[in-house]
């Protein structure tokens, strides 16, 4: 992202579907951190520590990045962001997505973990298109 500073916007949609245990609560945790202005810190921690994403670990991560743990835990337990997550899930199903991550780069679909260079090539093409 730093390479393209100011030229690229990255948007995250949740598609917790593969596993039944921690996918949903991890998505909740990311959005709960977002409420306290620390979405990306939590996002990075979740990726780093996956699949250790049970409730206790999530609360530990919240402490690590200095969140208000009480508010964070309440948000998790009340599943405050369930509607947002369900909306993302429905969108993913409507798009017939079957893998994560799936990227849409100016609408161009890229499925699965791809090397950075591959994604960069598409971004470069789109930047070139945008200039014309």
């Amino acid at each position, binding site marked *: 992202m730093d390479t393209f500073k100011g030229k690229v916007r*990255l948007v995250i949609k949740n598609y917790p579907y593969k596993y039944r245990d921690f996918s949903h609560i991890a998505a909740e945790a990311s959005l709960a951190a*977002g409420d306290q202005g620390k979405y990306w810190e939590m996002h990075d921690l979740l990726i780093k520590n996956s699949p250790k994403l049970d409730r206790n670990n999530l609360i530990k991560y919240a402490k690590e990045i200095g969140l208000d743990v009480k508010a964070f835990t309440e948000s998790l337990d009340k599943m405050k962001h369930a509607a947002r997550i369900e909306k993302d899930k429905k969108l993913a199903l409507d798009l017939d997505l079957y893998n994560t*991550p799936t990227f849409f780069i100016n609408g161009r679909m890229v499925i699965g973990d791809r090397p950075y260079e591959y994604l960069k090539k598409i971004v470069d093409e789109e930047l070139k298109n945008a200039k014309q």
Partner: protein
Amino acid sequence: MKKLMVFLLLLVVAVSYAAEQRFVVPVEDSPSQGPNNAPVTIIEFIDFQ
């Protein structure tokens, strides 16, 4: 021969159309970084687990 040419032409059109397919994915209030008016928007569907 003419039929074959038409078929090939249609095939080429179909393939290039598929390659150019762009999906419309609404951003809404999902978490994002980078300027709203950036020339490139990447929407990533993730599963943290």
